[in-house]
């Protein structure tokens, strides 16, 4: 075979060195099909070649971890004979090119990752980032992307029958040309019924099931591994089209087929399609796989081996069955009306051998292809620094609170989550905006799972290390605030171009910060996803690591955000906290009132954070809190308002003993603080004392209105109705 022209190699986003490595592995020049196979498997998206070195720093082991990174999803033991499988994944690039289908197939991909493991998906959450909706130049496009993404998630999740129970969504100019769509999914299965994506047993048949293969999505994985240019729109055909009904059939059929005991291993065909599923299953099992492409069900005629191997058509699974028991598997697929075909066989030689019309068109050692991808220690310098402290205009607390409540990041996202079926499967104990973390119960065990997603691009831009730690702390705090004990995490690392040393520095620092915090809170990372090259026309996004952390709690009526009764004591666990001008620069106040980003993110003391979390869990467990809400975006004043938006509109009068400037006092975002209302302030104080945290009584709940005082001087007083209207209706007015 002759060498490929340099431009062909470049089109496959392979460097000359990488090409040399391919030749060395094969001992010859690769065929065109082989070149394609290597290009997708060694793409950033599939091989993590820029991040792998640093991902190793993350803690991945723990007492409850059944399966860490390296499989389709992480698995955690929740007791009672059951495990949960969960992971978060990005679908950023496709969602920019084709928002509806990009987001829909993002949901489809992560759901397959979960049920491939034998787990039935029971919850989805999403973390979304968009550009400005009101920008004269880009606003219309951003609104279209937002509408398409939300409708796409709804379309897929609602039809499939998994509740979308929560998530987060915020807006920054840096996401103008590069929205982030990160989808988390969680499923449940019996501990002994977990399946792995591992081929075994030479002679066992390799079976393809699900949708037919078409020309859609070819090079999706490599597309996700490059920056966007003006030509990006031409890549629209690279985005696949989702069929949630087909996915639902696959789910039910796979779960039923697994129960026959005739399945040895199973993997979905996601990024890099048939290529990835065959070589990874072979590599994990230390065996070879030989397939005949003529037998692959095809939607179009005349597809080349290259196209079949690289297609990313959705809703397809590959499985290895026990020889002689194929019929048991086929019977189940027939029942569900699915097409299944034996396309190959497991071999002993460790090679991925692909035939087309009987002729070998690719023959690559599995292990080298899957595990010997290039590994780069890319140079990293220092993350870009933010500007200096600007002159801070004083903005009165009275005027500021309604403005912040009506801002895009803080206002109610009901417009989004009402489009999602958040209750199907009747397990949703706490859905969107009722509590700080979503809660789904496990009917089989009497246990519930709490889930929180968090990532703050503003904080991470100011300090990737501190920002990542803050995200871990916030997730754990959200879980603790509903009484759940955090047990494990998954992460989605959204960054710019790693070939730029300052961007690489962001990635490295964020991973190190996350590693430190996850180790500290004993929440090992069990899997996740890295999305790099989130840049359009050279403009990078804020470093945006998104954490998904799960916790466990006993199934019970949840303690929700709103105040329930007037006359209760309002206490601030963790105290009023500290802030200065430098630490004020990442807040929502800085964003909305000063229109700038500067300084550093809020200071986090991990030890104190942990003590606050222990305390709130104890308080919740003893039934002492009537309401609980952690302080986050917008600080104390915003949290107080959110607590007042319950059906009874019970408000509060609080008086704060502090030297901070009024606007800083009301809106700073220091972590480790939780606002509760209680009938039992003495018991709460005793618990706070035991855990050595401050828990000042800051006020009392009242029948009407909200008032904030600082040492008896009123900073602001509001009618709840007006604030609630601002909070509830803002989003819709922005979307129009």
């Amino acid at each position, binding site marked *: 075979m002759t060498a490929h022209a340099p431009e062909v190699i470049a089109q496959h986003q392979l460097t000359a060195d990488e090409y040399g490595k391919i030749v060395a592995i094969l001992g010859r020049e690769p065929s065109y099909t082989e070149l394609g196979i290597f290009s997708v498997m060694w793409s950033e998206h599939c091989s993590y070649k820029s991040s792998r070195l640093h991902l190793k720093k993350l803690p991945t082991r723990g007492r409850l971890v059944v399966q860490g990174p390296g499989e389709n999803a992480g698995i955690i033991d929740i007791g009672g004979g059951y495990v949960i499988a969960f992971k978060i994944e990005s679908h950023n690039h496709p969602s920019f090119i084709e928002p509806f289908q990009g987001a829909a197939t993002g949901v489809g991909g992560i759901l397959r990752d979960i049920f491939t493991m034998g787990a039935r998906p029971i919850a989805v959450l999403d973390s979304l980032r968009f550009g400005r909706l009101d920008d004269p130049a880009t606003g219309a496009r951003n609104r279209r992307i937002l509408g398409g993404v939300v*409708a796409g998630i*709804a379309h897929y999740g*609602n*039809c*499939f*029958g998994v509740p979308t129970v929560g998530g987060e969504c915020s807006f920054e100019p840096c996401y103008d040309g590069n929205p982030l769509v990160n989808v988390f999914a969680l499923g449940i299965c019996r501990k002994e019924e977990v399946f792995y994506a591992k081929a075994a047993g030479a002679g066992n048949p390799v079976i393809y099931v699900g949708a037919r293969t078409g020309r859609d999505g070819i090079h999706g994985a490599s597309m996700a591994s490059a920056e966007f240019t003006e030509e990006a729109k031409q890549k629209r055909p690279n985005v696949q089209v989702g*069929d*949630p*009904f*087909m996915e*639902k*059939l696959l789910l*039910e059929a796979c779960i039923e087929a697994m129960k026959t005991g005739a399945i040895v291993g199973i993997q979905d065909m996601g990024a890099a399609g048939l290529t990835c599923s065959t070589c990874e299953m072979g590599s994990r099992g230390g065996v070879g796989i030989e397939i005949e492409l003529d037998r692959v069900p095809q939607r179009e005629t005349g597809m080349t081996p290259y196209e079949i191997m690289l297609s990313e058509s959705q809703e397809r699974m590959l499985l290895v069955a026990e020889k002689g028991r194929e019929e048991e598997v086929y019977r189940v697929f027939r029942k*569900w*009306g699915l097409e299944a075909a034996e396309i190959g066989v497991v071999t002993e030689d460790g090679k991925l051998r692909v035939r087309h019309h009987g002729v070998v068109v690719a023959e690559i050692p599995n292990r080298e292809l899957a595990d010997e991808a290039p590994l780069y220690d890319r140079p990293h310098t220092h993350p870009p620094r933010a500007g200096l402290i600007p002159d801070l205009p004083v903005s009165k607390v009275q005027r500021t609170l309604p403005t912040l409540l009506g801002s895009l990041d803080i206002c109610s996202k009901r417009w989004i*989550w*009402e*489009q*999602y*079926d*958040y*209750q*199907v*499967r*009747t397990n*949703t*104990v706490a859905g969107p905006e009722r509590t700080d973390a979503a809660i789904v*119960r496990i*009917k089989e065990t009497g246990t519930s799972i709490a889930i929180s997603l968090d990532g703050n691009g503003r904080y991470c831009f100011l300090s990737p290390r501190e920002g990542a730690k803050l995200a871990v702390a916030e997730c754990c705090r959200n879980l603790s605030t509903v009484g759940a004990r955090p047990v494990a995490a998954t992460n989605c690392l959204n960054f710019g171009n790693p070939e730029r040393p300052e961007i690489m520095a962001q990635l490295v620092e964020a991973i190190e910060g996350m590693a430190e915090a996850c180790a500290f809170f004993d929440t090992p990372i069990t899997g996740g996803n890295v999305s790099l090259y989130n840049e359009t026309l050279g403009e990078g996004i804020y470093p945006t690591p998104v954490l998904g952390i799960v916790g466990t709690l006993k*199934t019970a*009526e949840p303690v929700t955000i709103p105040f329930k009764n007037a006359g209760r004591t309002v206490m601030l666990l963790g105290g009023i906290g500290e802030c200065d001008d430098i630490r004020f620069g990442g807040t929502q106040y800085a964003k909305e009132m000063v229109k700038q980003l500067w300084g550093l993110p809020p200071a986090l003391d991990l030890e104190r954070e942990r003590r606050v979390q222990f305390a709130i869990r104890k308080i919740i467990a003893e039934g002492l809190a009537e309401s609980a809400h952690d302080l986050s975006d917008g600080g104390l004043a915003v949290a107080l308002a959110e607590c007042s938006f319950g059906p009874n509109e019970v408000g509060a009068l609080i008086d704060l003993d502090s030297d901070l400037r009024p606007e800083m006092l009301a809106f700073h975002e220091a972590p480790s603080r939780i606002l509760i209302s209680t009938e039992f302030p003495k018991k709460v104080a005793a618990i706070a004392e035991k855990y050595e945290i401050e828990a000042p009584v800051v006020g009392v709940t009242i029948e009407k209105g909200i008032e904030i005082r600082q040492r008896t001087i009123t900073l602001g007083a509001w009618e709840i109705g007006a604030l609630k209207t601002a909070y509830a209706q803002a989003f819709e007015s922005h979307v129009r």
Partner: protein
Amino acid sequence: MKFGVIVFPGSNCDHDAFHAVTTNLGQKAEYIWHDSPSLGDIDAVILPGGFAYGDYLRCGAIARFSPVMGAVGKFAAAGGLVMGICNGFQILVEAGLLPGALIRNRGLKFVCREVRLRTETVHSPFTSAAQEGQILRMPIAHGEGCYFADGRTLDELDAEDRVLFRYVGNPNGSLGDIAGILNRERNVMGMMPHPERASDPLMGSTDGLTIFQSVLDAVVRA
């Protein structure tokens, strides 16, 4: 008594309906696969929510041709109690067992929300355990739940006391705020809201149990 819960390949509230009538109501139930030619030995049948065959065409347009719908038709003709919830309502309408149509929500978006329903008649085997005018809280979750019918049909429904529930605060543009209706013989009902999701205090409401309890009462009485 024993409920039958029909399972179309795209049903996704089948488990929830099953759970509601077994664990929460304390009765027996069994699943009935969509290609079954008969319903077997059951006292009432539930067509649950979901996307029967994907519903890429009109919701329920394909499901009406499935083998099990022949059996449901016979069961209904013999006086058996039939409940269509959400997608089940859409299917019953497509199958001609209930009048009218369910079209895209007026807002053109899927809506998942708790709604309040006013009980319009208690003279039915599905609402006998409720009070006339009783407000029931339960969720809706649909994209095509706007009830539509011609004027004569709407007049007939009114005149024959066949409107089961009306929304208090119309979420989808349904004519006459209609959320649920009966057939002329009063043994087949369809409703867009989800009583099975309001059958457990932990899910925020148990008002849906009133409907299942009514069915139980009717079967026991018979």
